[in-house]
């Protein structure tokens, strides 16, 4: 069966941006009949998902092996409600095939606040939310992957398979096993669970003690993260669908490196993507040229967690400029302060300069291992001002471990120094500084995985200090919503006991929780209350002897390393970049940096 969009006309005419739901993108997947149908699902809007490179890589890994892969994004509530009322099932973009008819649906979990949207999409597809309610019936295998999959436990009761780590190969390997087993049989799950990068929640039992704390995991399998060692030869989609309507990033994306050398102690991405793997200048140039030719975009974005650390950046920029058609611009979204120099800055658009010192004082920056100094910020800012920048965006975190009021007040000092650096010369425009402050969220597989998250009152008190100290001309202050950060913190370090809360919240009407205007705080509170779950249990400090809900996953990094890093944080000792010296995180065998190859 396929859904005919002509029959959806009355709905399409009533919703915002109907072209999100019609397909017909240039470069959309054209699938010949195939033995296996994979739907790459993204639990956020079309324009967000279409800007994501990861899902295109996963889709390509299926297509390369002769399987069909199509996309589906979370429809906005107007369209979702309308198709539900009309009895039309959620369908995939190119094939217009109802999701329930696929062999496997893989959801990409970019952040925890998309979890209700996963339920929303299953519901719209007419697929029972809970694994138990699907058992024994012909439904697609429900899989999840992406960064949040490193602690998938809050979703364990809803999903069949979790892909942990790099999705280039293993996801499609599972399809092969599925075909060999003639479907999602017990044998299929057992064989899949043996693969590196696969976790099957049904094959693991979590044991709790009398107080309800986890006291063990029972399973014959040890889920390990999949790591693609050779990124240069890894699968990469040389052409990609071009979205119908303007999306978050209307540009081609190449992935320069995966992983980050820095090891900032709050940053989950800095650990779960270790070790750093790079693509060569030749490969990147080839990929960029092919994407520009096949999409018609006029910008290439050089993505990675810290593109400035790419050792051949200058060579890459030169090679791209020499090979790409004239007029194509380069975007370097993740340049760090200390790698910022004016030669690169001129490639970016002169809008505003972004720094993420994360903490106001050098003391606290040492604690979090954010190895940036005031001088580095200032010299980078000054060279940017000299080429015409007049706006600076600064990102900070509030509620970091060991943070005191002086650390917060030190943010003022950075602003003052930037202002006086700007004032040193006569400039055409007046300087604008915007300070954005988010609340620290302790994440699994980081040295801060045991830390508490600040309470609401504490956050408010700290925000008031900032309001007072940052009341200066030309400086605007903004923060992320506290409740949002709290919810993210709960699910990031959550366990299986959150399943009923999640389901209840969805049934009460929560979806698109990551969108401030959609987040329904009261309904979430109601869900926690009705399920008798205290969110505080999840945001509290965890004991070092506790078994953490994600401890059963082998991410490749020793838990002892995280504990050691936490102690170093408390002593304010910086752990340098992996580029300079290996700090022995446990990945040495797989890590080119540890072998001295970088």
């Amino acid at each position, binding site marked *: 069966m396929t859904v005919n969009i002509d029959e959806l*006309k009355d709905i399409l005419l009533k919703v915002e*941006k109907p072209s999100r739901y019609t397909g*017909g993108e240039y470069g959309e997947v054209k699938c010949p009949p195939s033995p296996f149908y994979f739907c790459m699902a993204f639990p956020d809007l079309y324009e967000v998902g279409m800007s994501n490179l990861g899902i295109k890589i996963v889709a390509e890994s299926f297509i390369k092996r002769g399987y069909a892969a199509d996309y589906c994004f979370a429809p906005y509530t107007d369209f979702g409600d309308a198709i539900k009322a009309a009895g039309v099932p959620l369908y995939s973009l190119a094939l217009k095939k109802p999701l329930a008819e696929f062999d496997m649906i893989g959801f990409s979990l970019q952040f925890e606040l998309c979890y209700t949207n996963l339920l929303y999409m299953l519901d719209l597809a007419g697929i029972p939310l809970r694994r138990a309610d699907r058992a024994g019936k012909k439904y697609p295998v429900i899989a999840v992957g992406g960064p949040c999959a490193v602690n998938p436990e809050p979703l364990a009761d809803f999903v069949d398979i979790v892909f942990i780590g790099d999705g280039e190969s293993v996801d499609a390997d599972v399809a092969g096993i599925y075909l060999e087993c003639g479907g999602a049989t017990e044998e299929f799950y057992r064989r899949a669970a043996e693969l590196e990068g696969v976790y099957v929640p049904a094959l693991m039992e979590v044991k709790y003690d009398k107080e309800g704390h986890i006291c063990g995991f029972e399973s014959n399998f040890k889920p390990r993260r999949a790591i693609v060692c050779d990124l240069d030869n890894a699968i990469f989609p040389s052409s990609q669908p071009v979205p119908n309507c303007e999306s978050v990033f209307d540009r081609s994306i190449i992935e320069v490196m995966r992983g980050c050398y820095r090891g900032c102690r709050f940053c989950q991405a800095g650990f779960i993507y270790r070790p750093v793997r790079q693509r060569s200048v030749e490969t990147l140039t080839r990929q960029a040229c092919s994407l520009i030719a*096949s999409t018609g*975009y006029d910008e290439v974005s050089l993505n990675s967690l810290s593109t400035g650390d790419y050792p051949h950046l200058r060579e890459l920029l030169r090679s791209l400029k020499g090979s790409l058609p004239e007029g194509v611009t380069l975007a370097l979204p993740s340049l760090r302060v200390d790698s910022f120099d004016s030669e690169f800055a001129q490639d970016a658009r002169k809008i505003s300069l972004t720094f993420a010192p994360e903490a106001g004082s050098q003391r606290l920056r040492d604690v979090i291992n954010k190895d940036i100094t005031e001088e580095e910020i200032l010299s980078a800012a000054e060279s940017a001002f000299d080429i015409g920048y007049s706006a600076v965006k600064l990102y900070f975190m509030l509620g970091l471990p060991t943070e005191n009021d002086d650390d917060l007040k030190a943010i003022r000092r950075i602003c003052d120094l930037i202002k006086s650096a700007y004032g040193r010369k006569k400039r055409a425009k007046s300087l604008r500084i915007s300070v954005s402050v988010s609340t620290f969220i302790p994440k699994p597989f980081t040295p801060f995985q045991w830390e508490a998250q600040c309470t609401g009152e504490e956050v408010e008190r700290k925000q008031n200090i900032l309001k007072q100290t940052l009341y200066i001309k030309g400086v605007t202050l903004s923060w992320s919503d506290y409740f949002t950060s709290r919810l993210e913190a709960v699910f990031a370090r959550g366990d299986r006991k959150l399943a009923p809360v999640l389901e209840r919240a969805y049934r009460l009407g929560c979806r698109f929780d990551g969108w401030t205007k959609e987040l329904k705080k009261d309904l979430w509170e109601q869900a926690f209350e009705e399920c008798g779950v205290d969110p505080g249990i999840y945001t509290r400090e965890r004991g070092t002897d506790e078994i953490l809900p994600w401890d059963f996953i082998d991410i490749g990094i020793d838990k002892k390393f995280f504990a050691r890093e936490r102690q170093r944080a408390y002593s304010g000792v910086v752990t340098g970049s992996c580029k300079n010296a290996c700090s022995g995180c446990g990945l040495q065998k797989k890590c080119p940096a540890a072998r001295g190859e970088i």
Partner: protein
Amino acid sequence: MIAFKYTKTDGAEYLSHLDLLRHIYRTMRRADIDVAYSGGYHAHPRIFLNNPLGTGIKSVAEYGAVESTFAGDFMEAFNSRSPDGVKVTKWAYVKENPNYANCIVKCTYTAEGIQPFDIDNFLSEKSIVITDLRGREVDIRPRIYTVERRGDRLLFTLGCGENNLRPDLFCSYLEKRFGGHAEDIIKTASIMSGDEFV
């Protein structure tokens, strides 16, 4: 300049005008059809399309022009790199911008599903007043040029540009008055004050 006639079907009828312009621009980039830029601070590609068509209305008679030095087979180059719903069906070199946004004065559409009614009688009315999308009363009679029945479909020509009457609005008026539900409204011809490609 190159002037061209193109389609807006297969889902492309739901593109906003700006998104359509972006699609056409990117198609040309993919196809190596060079596009001149306007001067000025906010330079924009010199692509000119006829007036926006209402969302959800298909068309096989859209017109556009592009300032380009491209010397090959424009239709073949464009269509090899365009989305399924946006295909060039005719093209020519023209001396200057035909300005389709102004010179298209009437458009012909077809639609299915409107209950048959006495067309002669309908057309003999001196004035037909409807409430438009902004809630104003307008007499649409002067904007209706022809109405014919062809088998299952109704074929009608309405004013465009200054004298514009949206076909979906016209159809919903007919639905209300005569019954039925208009399906599959397609613009089949654009009628210009001068020649198609000058």
